[in-house]
Every structure is written in C-alpha cells, then in structure tokens.
C-alpha cells in the first residue's frame, strides 16, 4: 500500500518511517512537511494511505482533509496531545496514533486497514466518479466522519453547502449539491428535485403522489417528493 507521511517535524517523520519499516506491505512513497506540499504530493503520487499529523503550522490535518477533493485515502492520524481531535475520532472509530507511537498500536492500526486484504483501493473511477466503496471525509464542529459513499441516503442542498444524511448523522459538506452530483455515480444517485439527491439503494417504498408525481420513502423514514417530470425520468431509469 502506497503511503504518504505528513508531519511538520523531520524527526517525527523519520521516526514513523523507522517504525513502518517493520511492515513490508506499506510502501512510503513520499513525505510532506506542510499541508501545501502534501496537497501537491497527493495529486502527484495518489497515495492510498495517509499518515497525517493533526497539529501542523497554518492548517490542521483535519482542515487539510476536509478541504481534500473526495475520495479520501485511508487516513491514520498522528497526534501528540490533542484532546478534542482525539475525542472526535473516538466517536467515529477513526484511527489515530498518539506520539510517541507505540509499535503495537501501529501494528493494530495497519492490520485494520480494509484495503490491505481486498486490494480494492480507492482509485478514481472514470471521469473522477466516486465509487460506492470510496470514502468522503465530513467534519462538523469537533466531530469527524469517514463516510462510505454507499452509506449516504440523501444529499440536500443548503446554499453553497450540502447536507449529507447517513446513519444517524447529517453533517454539512463544504461543497455545492451540483458539484457533488457531478461526482456521484448516476447508477446509484438520482436527482429527485432541485434540492435533493437520493441514493436509489436506500429506497424503501414508492407511492403515487399529486399530479403524476411520486413520493419516495427512504429507509430511515425520510420522504422525498418527485415532481411529474422527475417522476417520468425516474420511471424511465427504473424500467431499464
């Protein structure tokens, strides 16, 4: 697995490199000391795994990740002492390592990486499409989520932002609904109306609605209205 190390301290990177030498399955393809450099390396090297320091000059690792164009690679955070970030991660079972890194904890984190056994790693699909196994990083306040695209039930436009509904959370994503629509696979995601995109896999039932429209019930209880034109599109799509 191709990994990129992001930490502002040379010694911290060299220590992590030394620790990772025990894991032949991890190949370190690059190092970055700042988020700007990391962004360039992300584009150039397309790493599948990111070791990301939380506290960095200028921009935190979390800010960096939130601004990253999805899909995000696998991420293992490293932090020296960051109560809030660590609390946020724990809530969402994201992986993080406390510095100085305990080799046993590192081994556990590496073993937990799903991609390692399946080797179905987040590679950009055709035309930069998000595959259903790809992950999106969402942050709201102190909470952070890595959401698998297939777990998203509904995306709702809120001005320039998009509210993403999954599990029992609905944080905001700092991207417009139109921008998201371009990245989503039309096989799974359907533009129900001006404000909403639904995940077809999450539809529980459909009933006829006023003036030849449709009312779609999603698993989890959300109802979404389709106007006559969109209902026609939807019927065409489903009858394929």
């Amino acid at each position: 697995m191709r990994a990129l190390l992001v930490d502002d301290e040379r010694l911290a990177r060299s220590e992590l490199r030394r620790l990772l030498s025990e894991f032949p399955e991890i190949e370190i393809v690059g190092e970055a000391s700042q988020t700007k450099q990391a962004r360039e390396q992300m584009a150039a090297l397309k790493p599948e795994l990111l070791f990301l320091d939380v506290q960095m000059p200028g921009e935190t690792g979390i800010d960096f990740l939130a601004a990253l164009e999805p899909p995000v690679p696998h991420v293992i955070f490293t932090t020296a002492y960051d109560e809030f970030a660590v609390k946020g991660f724990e809530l969402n079972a994201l992986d993080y390592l406390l510095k100085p890194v305990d080799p046993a904890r590192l081994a556990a984190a590496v073993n937990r990486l799903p991609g390692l056994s399946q080797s179905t790693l987040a590679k950009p699909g055709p035309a930069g499409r998000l595959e259903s196994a790809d992950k999106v990083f969402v942050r709201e306040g102190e909470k952070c989520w890595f959401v698998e695209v297939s777990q998203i039930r509904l995306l709702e436009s809120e001005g320039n932002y998009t509210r993403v509904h999954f599990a029992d959370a609905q944080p905001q994503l700092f991207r417009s609904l139109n921008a998201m629509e371009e990245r989503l696979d039309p096989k799974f995601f359907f533009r129900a109306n001006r404000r909403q995109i639904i995940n077809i896999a999450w539809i529980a039932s459909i009933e006829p609605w006023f003036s030849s429209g449709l009312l779609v019930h999603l698993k989890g209880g959300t109802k979404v209205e389709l106007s006559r034109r969109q209902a026609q599109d939807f019927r065409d799509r489903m009858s394929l």
Partner: protein
Amino acid sequence: MEVSADISLPAPDAAEREQAKQRLYVLFQAAGWSAWLLMEAIFTFAFPEPPDERRDVTTNLSIVIMFMTVGLLLTHLLRPFMRRWKWKQLGWRQLVPRMVATSVVMALIWVGFITGWVHGVLGEKWSMHVAPVVIVVMDTCFISIVFFGWLCLYFFYHVFDRLNRSEIERFQLMTSVKEAELRALKSQVNPHFIFNSLNSLRALIDENPGRARRAVTQLANLLRYSLQSGQLETVPFEDELEVVNDYLALEQVRHEERLRLRLDIGTDTLSLPIPPMLLQTLVENAVKYGISPRADGGEISIVARNEGGALRIQVSNPGEIKASEKAGSTGVGLHNAAERLRLIFGEKATLRLRSDKPALVVAEAVIPLPVHP
C-alpha cells in the same frame, strides 16, 4: 515565599464566638450597674439631703440596691425580646423610635417599682416641697435616658461587631480569590510540546545518541521546574533563564534550523525576581506564533535589561499581531501571564504586545522592584 497566604484567618468557631459575646455581656452589665451604684453612693455622700428628709444608711442602701436590681433585671429580660423581634436587623430609622418607646416603658415600670418600695413598703412620706406627680414624671424622664443610653451601647456594640465581622469575611474572601486566581493562572508546560519532544527524542536516540541524552536532561529540567515553581511566587531571573534555554534547546531539536536565537541578557538582571514561567510563556508564544507557522522559521530574540531595579524583558519574533484573530487562541497564555504579573507585583507591572517594525512582534514585560526585597 509561599503563595499560600498566612494572612488568611481561620473562621472563628461560631459557638466559641457566642460564648465570648455572652461573657462580654455579663461583664458590661455588671460593670455598668456597679458604676451606677458607685455614682449614687458618691452623690449621696457629697450632696447630703436636708436633715429632715435624710434617710438612715440601711434604708438608703436598700433603695439603691433595689434601683440596681430592677434596672439589671429589666434590661436583662429585654434582651430575649429584642432577639425575638429581630431588632438587630432593623435600620436606624425603625430602631430609634422603638428604642425611645422601650426606654419610656421600662422607665415607667422601674419608677413604679421604686415608688412602691419607697412609699409603699418602706412607708416613706412624699416630699413636702414638690408635688408627687412632678417627682414621678421627672424620675421617669431621667430613668428613660439611662435606659436609652443602655440600648445605645447595646446596639453600637452590635453594629461594630457586624462591621468587624464582614470586614474579616471580605478579607478572607479576597485572599482566597487571589490564591485561586494565581493557582489557575500558573502556566504549565504545554502537554503538546512534551509529547512532541518525546517523539523527536525517540527518533534522536538512533540518529544522535549524544544529543538525545542531553535532550532527556533538558526535558527533565523543564518538567521539574514547571512542577516545582508552582509553589513559588517569584524566582531569580537567572533560574527562569536557565530553564528557558533548556526549553529552546528542545524546540531546536524539533524545529532544527527553522528556529534561530539571539540572546542579549544584562548581567545585572540575573538576580532580579520574576514570576516563574513568565519568560517561558513569552518564549513559548513566540515559538508558537513566530516559528511554527513559518515554513522557513525565523529568529527569536530575548533582551533583558535592569532599569533602576525594574526588569525589562523583550521577546521578539517574526509575525504580525492579529487583534481580530480568534481572540481565544491568541491571547490566553499572554493574558494569563499579565494577570499573574498584576496579582503579584500590582499595577506597576506591565505586559504588552506591540509591533515596532513591520513583520516583527515584541512582547515586553516590565517587572518593578518589589517593595520588600
């Protein structure tokens, strides 16, 4: 010099206090009425009445003792009533009319008793020169004044007692608040720094064992100082400087060539007192805002001067003062340091952040000569 102030008085035990008050009351009553007795005696002997109206000594004594006993009993019995009516809580506008009325009522009772005793029991004749009514009225007026005086003394004592007590309480409160503030403001070494240093140290063990050994000692010094200085109000500037040097050496391990230093310390500053961790806070801030956010780092300079006993310290780092920047993150460390300085050295001590030249921030602390060196 311990911070935990010895000036804070232990709260006096309430029961003990009540007992002391009771003793004082008994003493006052006894002394007051005895003085009255003495005065009566002196007057009787100094200005003897005309021979035809002179009483014999036993009668006279019995009358005076009766005087005293009735007065003592009346005032003593009045006390529980005043407590029940909560007169101590009244303002003087409400209290004074009550005092006057009580004095008159008590005087009437007293005059009644005395008249009964003298003219009833002892069977003494009324004076030939003055009408009995006049005597009764005059006696009542005179005795009212005596009782009013007694009540005044009683309430004066309580007013002073309460003032005294609230003064003590306020003083205790002030010292405890000051202590708590100081404790809260005592800055500690940033845990983030500690763990990052330990992490760098681990890498250094392989890379440069000598440097790693030195770094362990420096980190130990810094931690020990941070833990111990919590109990001190001030330390010699020299001690603080030594630890700041250790801290900077550790930051240089982390930031390497990104952190450059320039120290200019007057030798006559070394013995001057400084709140522990003050310079440390300024330098930590300089690293946090002047070095960490800059890819190519910068120079931190520390200048210390003795200006007629006052210590002037300037710590400068590259950067700009961002007043509008999230006030929460920028100022907390410095604000706490300034508060701490003010609590220990008073208003003359100052801590300011300014920018003389573009892209240069200077934190300046002026610590006056302490009043008690």
